[in-house]
């Protein structure tokens, strides 16, 4: 007999197999999900939820797709949260401390409660990356926030109203565009292609009889 547990979706009780995730348990219960569902494998951040285990004080956050159900779990989904993304032209920005002050000044209202870090289903040091952003250490902010899936559970818990995922995203774009060194071999190759340096060889390859192409493919040297 399959092990079953009792869970509560929006306060209503359902008995579901214990091996399921919150997401598959909702489907087992009969829900056809439209919101609060996405990649189903922990990459897209669509399925943030808040839950509490009956009798325990602590409120927990997680992704419905990667969190296994437990006995007495009271669950609500957060299919949307009004995080506040500021719009900008990335080409007009400079990678400095000023940019954070102008676009996301509320990060300086952080009270250091660390609720964002505790809420993160990716176990990121969220408050730490906000601190880096405050100090204009954009590269560090980018690195520390890299694994963010933008589910927004941090922002849900933040008493200062900070939109953490948006801050991290800005830092990463600035880091990727302005701070990381240029890939010179890439710039060179794009120029070579634009100058038509491979056109002749490509034409030759495309015009070869298929048997010759097969022979070339099957005997090509593979870089070690």
């Amino acid at each position: 007999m399959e092990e079953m547990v009792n869970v509560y979706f929006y306060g209503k009780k359902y008995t579901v197999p214990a091996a399921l995730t919150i997401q598959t348990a909702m489907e087992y219960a009969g829900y056809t999900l439209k919101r609060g569902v996405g990649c189903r494998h922990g990459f897209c951040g669509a399925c943030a939820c808040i839950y509490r285990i009956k009798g325990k004080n602590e409120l927990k956050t997680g992704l419905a797709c990667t969190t296994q159900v437990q006995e007495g779990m009271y669950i609500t989904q957060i299919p949307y949260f009004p995080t506040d993304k500021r719009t900008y032209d990335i080409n007009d920005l400079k990678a400095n401390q000023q940019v954070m002050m102008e676009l996301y000044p509320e990060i300086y209202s952080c009270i250091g409660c660390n609720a964002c870090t505790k809420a993160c289903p990716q176990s990121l040091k969220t408050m730490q990356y906000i601190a880096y952003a405050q100090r204009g250490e954009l590269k560090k902010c980018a690195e520390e926030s890299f694994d963010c899936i933008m589910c927004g559970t941090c922002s849900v818990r933040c008493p200062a109203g900070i939109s953490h995922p948006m801050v991290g995203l800005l830092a990463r774009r600035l880091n990727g565009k302005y701070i990381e060194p240029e890939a010179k071999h890439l710039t060179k190759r794009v120029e070579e292609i634009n100058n038509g340096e491979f056109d002749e060889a490509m034409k030759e390859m495309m015009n070869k009889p298929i048997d010759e192409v097969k022979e070339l493919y099957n005997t090509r040297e593979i870089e070690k």
Partner: protein
Amino acid sequence: MYAPYPESMMESVKKVEATRAARMATEPRRLTADEKDDLLAKFHPDYNNDSFAEIKVGPNKGQRAPLELAKMLHSTSRLMTDKVDISKIDYDVDVLVIGGGGAGSSCAIEAHNAGANVMIVTKLRIGDANTMMAEGGIQAADKENDSPVQHYLDCFGGGHFAARPELVKRLVTEAPDAIKWLNELGVEFDKDEDGTMVTTHGGGTSRKRMHAAKDYSGAEIMRTLRDEVINLGIPVIEFTSAVELIKDDKGQVAGAVLLNMETGDYMVAKAKTVVIATGGAGRMHYNGFPTSNHYGATADGLVLGYRAGAPLLYQDSIQYHPTGAVYPSQILGALVTEKVRSVGAQLVNANGEAYIHPLETRDVNASGVIRECREGRGVDAPGGVQGVWLDTPMIEILGGEGTIEKRIPAMFRMYMNYGIDMRKVPILIYPTLHYQNGGLEINGDGFTNAIPNLLVAGEAAGGIHGTNRLMGNSLLDVIVFGRNAGKKAAAKYKEVEIGTMNLDHVGKFDEELKAAGLDTGEVSPMLLPKYARHER
């Protein structure tokens, strides 16, 4: 001893550990062309005729398609029962992009930058797409020992010489520029301190040209594209599906009928050009396989285009990614990125044998896993499933301690979530339904030949990868062909004059279904998979 698996599985882990040192001393040999053909014919699911049906109506009549896709092609339109007045226009745009993934977003950005009035409709949120889940990387021939011609050979050969040469040419020639474009939008690629891109092999590559952003490559690209779409102020109509294309009396595409997924209300979008960028079909569960795909991957665009008269190409060619998770059950079908093999892990059977080279093409490696399991060399896991090992501890031995957390943090996290430390024990895998190699047929410029002003980009298009796609060529495809579609649509719309809009093709297709005696009892496109369990 660290034992996160049931006892029966741990017995096999011991064998894997016992042979590890000897396996690491030699590289498994590559198969010959004949050996590969033989393995595919015996074990690849595409060769299982029972899982295909003949298409009875439309442009590909007489050809075969997976059973589940054939059923959708043979099903009736929602608009046969729900009548929509298309003379009431809700949106009027130059370029309508259907789908908000990597291809749709790239397309919208380029169309906007070229001055077009462009709008995205997407049935979930922008970025809810297979692009977001792509882990391993994106190919581009930008190193000294490499060239677009070498990339062409790998892509064309890996796809069994079935790809459309003009599409492969565009893919590989525009690849370096695609990487540069992304980098300049702020995508953080893995680089050395001097800016040199860190590149590795993928299955079937002859040069190390896989660029990555750890193992969040697709997520890093998608979240940046999404941010740019929002910054540019491009309208994105979320939770809204296209359920039918609209044509005009000249036979041109003229827009789409939209469905609000939440309220059930219909809307009408008039457009001078339409781009289908609806993605894949993993949630159709062809052959009963689990899938690595997004919830929305239900082949909607194929149905829309087909009903309007656009032919499919290689609709019977499906990619099963060799390494999907099989244990624990909570992550069944989840993608275990090919990068795990790029950075050193071997495929090892229950007896501890490295039975194949880990970087053969995906169709070959998937067939290899299936062969090992069918012939009794698979590992049994709880729930009646089987798999073979991916020997992940090798990665730490080869690359040094910390390599797994640095290079494949998403994989590490996915398994640690269930108490499995892949630095210490191998992980169990089996093929998972990953990609539709085929799709709607396009010409070299991304347009369908059958319907004027209709373009297709991304996974919904067919012919770029032949009958097997290489790792890193799909992220590349969505960027190259997405951008291309945006530019081409923005150039085209200026000369388009829409005539009288109609849905005549929908009625005509329905008559064909009736004439062929088809009644599946379903409507299509599917839009969402039917996962809800109902007791009655």
